[in-house]
């Protein structure tokens, strides 16, 4: 069934075209099996809402955690199942009447997203770090997000032992959106998916237990800028639609490279107008670059990362990047391959300023979360280098990098949640001085993550970086590789600075303590370390995986 069918379905329903009213109505066919991962998660999310409504408060936390974990696990199982059925390879196809692609990249990214969300959810559910208030274990989310910080209402809420268990369904919704995002095969789905995973994130940012003002500020900034960017994205969609007369990737691609079957006069008119295509493509690109946090669309990143509750930051930093880059890849490889030569210079520029900008500004950061934010920007730049490679190796290298990066990120932020003092997490770097003396293990783990970020050999970071740079060099982007290594050198500086701080400087008397987490967070961190070392020493298996998943269906 052709990719544009779903729309012709609507058109016939609308009856504007030649088809007479009351003509045969073909019901849309939805391949539920192939959409299983998404459906499971969405379903679980809806269930979660119901849980909020009907399950007594005491049991909610447990129920929600269980539900979420089970749902994600099931979704992952479904992904694995699909991959096993060869949807990643030979019988990759397009489901839901052209709305969603089920192919290698989609499944790989969905798998990654699900695993990452799984470990992130563990940190969401962590309740051992903050001292129990009024005998109730508390997590890092506000007792009652609505209540004014410091007000009697809040005190009462805390006393009553309220907790915002809504975060779990919210996370699930967001995950659902992320699952669709890289698989979206028409612009409408893309837009909807974007909103579906963004909106819950806006909320999640706002519900920190500590430092609520910053948390809310982060939410506002994230929300406004996010909405702003999605407006651009939407306008881009509009223009592309105007250019091609369709919003399905394949359809647009056909129009762009002029292999379209029947050309009606209107289409002929707009097809001639490259401005529509170029401006639309650029705006679409901008929408996605905003989500991956590329310069100059990055400015929300540091503030939001810093303000949001750290577990959310970790989730956001890891999963969002994966989803957004997935979508970006699909867009560039499926929709606009015809535009490669027009977009390449622009992408080069963006990649360069992103790598350098992120690395340079990070040097003078004093807050660990902001530091990681800028480092994530720099990494976005590295990944872009792989995206630009415009080759199957490029795709698989990016997939691999995303997998590597996301786990390390979640792990790193999980460690950040452990270092606490009187008023919550001690994120100011000066407080990390001498951490290595006080709790060598934590410091060592964090050092491992930092070294992986820095791309030191024998860590996963190096494997990823090497894969991406290699692909870029192969794809004729040697210049980017040089810029890449230079900015890695700059970046090394601030990672090293943190290590110096932790190990070589004397601990402060009023320094923070390292909380002993529950098995949940421990798992998150352990997974991070494991991935870092395994993919650093023997990445071959996962490179193969990414390699097989490197082909998009059209």
């Amino acid at each position, binding site marked *: 069934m052709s990719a544009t069918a779903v*729309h*012709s379905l*609507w*058109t016939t329903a*609308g009856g*504007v*075209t030649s088809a007479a009213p009351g003509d045969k109505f073909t019901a849309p066919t939805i391949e539920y099996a192939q959409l299983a991962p998404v459906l499971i998660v969405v379903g679980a999310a809806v269930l979660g809402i119901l849980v909020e409504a009907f399950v007594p408060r005491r049991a909610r936390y447990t129920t929600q955690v269980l539900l979420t974990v089970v749902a994600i696990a099931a979704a992952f199982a479904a992904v694995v199942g699909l991959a096993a059925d060869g949807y990643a390879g030979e019988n990759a196809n397009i489901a839901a009447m052209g709305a969603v692609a089920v192919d290698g990249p989609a499944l790989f990214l969905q798998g990654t997203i699900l695993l990452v969300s799984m470990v992130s959810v563990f940190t969401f559910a962590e309740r051992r770090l903050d001292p129990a208030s009024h005998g109730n274990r508390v997590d890092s989310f506000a007792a009652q*997000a*609505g209540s*004014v*910080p410091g007000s009697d209402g809040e005190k009462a809420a805390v006393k009553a032992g309220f907790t915002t268990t809504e975060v779990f369904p919210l996370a699930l919704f967001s995950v659902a959106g992320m699952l669709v995002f890289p698989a979206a095969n028409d*612009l*409408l789905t893309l*837009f*909807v998916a974007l*909103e579906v995973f963004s*909106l819950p994130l*806006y*909320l999640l940012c*706002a519900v920190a237990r500590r430092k*609520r*003002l*910053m948390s*809310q*500020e*982060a*939410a*506002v*900034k994230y*929300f*406004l800028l996010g*909405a*702003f960017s999605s*407006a*651009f994205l*939407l*306008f881009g*969609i*509009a*223009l592309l*639609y*105007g250019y091609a*007369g*369709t*919003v399905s990737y394949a359809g647009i691609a056909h129009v762009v490279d002029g292999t379209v079957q029947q050309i*009606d006069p*209107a*289409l002929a*008119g*707009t097809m001639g107008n490259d401005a529509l295509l170029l401006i639309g493509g650029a705006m679409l690109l901008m929408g996605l670059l905003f989500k991956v946090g590329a310069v100059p669309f990055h400015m929300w990143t*540091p*503030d939001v990362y*810093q*303000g949001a509750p750290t577990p959310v930051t970790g989730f956001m930093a890891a999963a969002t990047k994966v989803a957004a880059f997935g979508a970006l890849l699909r867009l560039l490889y499926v929709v606009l391959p015809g535009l490669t030569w027009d977009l390449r210079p622009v992408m080069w520029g963006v990649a360069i300023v992103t790598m350098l900008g992120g690395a340079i500004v990070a040097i003078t950061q004093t807050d660990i979360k902001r530091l990681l934010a800028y480092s994530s920007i720099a990494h976005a730049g590295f990944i872009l280098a792989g995206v630009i490679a415009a080759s199957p190796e490029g795709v698989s290298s990016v997939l691999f990098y995303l997998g590597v990066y996301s786990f390390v990120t979640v792990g790193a932020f999980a460690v950040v949640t452990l270092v606490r003092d009187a008023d919550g997490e001690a994120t100011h770097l000066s407080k990390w001085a001498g951490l290595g003396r006080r709790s060598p293990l934590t410091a060592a783990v964090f050092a491992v993550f930092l070294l992986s970020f820095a791309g030191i050999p024998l860590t996963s970071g190096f494997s990823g970086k090497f894969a991406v740079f290699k692909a870029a060099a192969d794809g004729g982007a040697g210049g980017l590789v040089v810029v890449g290594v230079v900015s890695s050198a700059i970046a090394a500086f601030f990672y090293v600075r943190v290590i110096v701080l932790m190990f070589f400087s004397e601990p402060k008397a009023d320094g923070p303590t390292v909380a002993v987490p529950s098995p949940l967070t421990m798992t998150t961190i352990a997974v991070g370390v494991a991935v870092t070392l395994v993919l650093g020493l023997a990445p071959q298996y996962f490179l193969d995986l990414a390699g097989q998943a490197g082909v998009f269906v059209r």
Partner: protein
Amino acid sequence: MNPVNYLYLAALLFTIGASGVLIRRNAIVVFMCIELMLNACNLALVAFSRMHGNLDGQIIAFFTMVVAAAEVVIGLAIIVSLFRSRHSASVDDASLMKL
């Protein structure tokens, strides 16, 4: 009337909305400007839909409205809670985090 004019109008609205976002302080107003941009998109979509003689654009417009509505819910929630804790809806006041 040439449907292209609608596109000019859409672009105009979009620009107005965008500049509103850049200029206005009050979060609510900023938000409204964003809505305006979305509407501009809708206008463009519908216009194009008309040009191409298929309804995709109009369908998307509907989706957009729904999404916008959802955004309103979330957005207002956030802005209101911000307002309650700061007694100000100015986006410039919310600048604890910088540098």
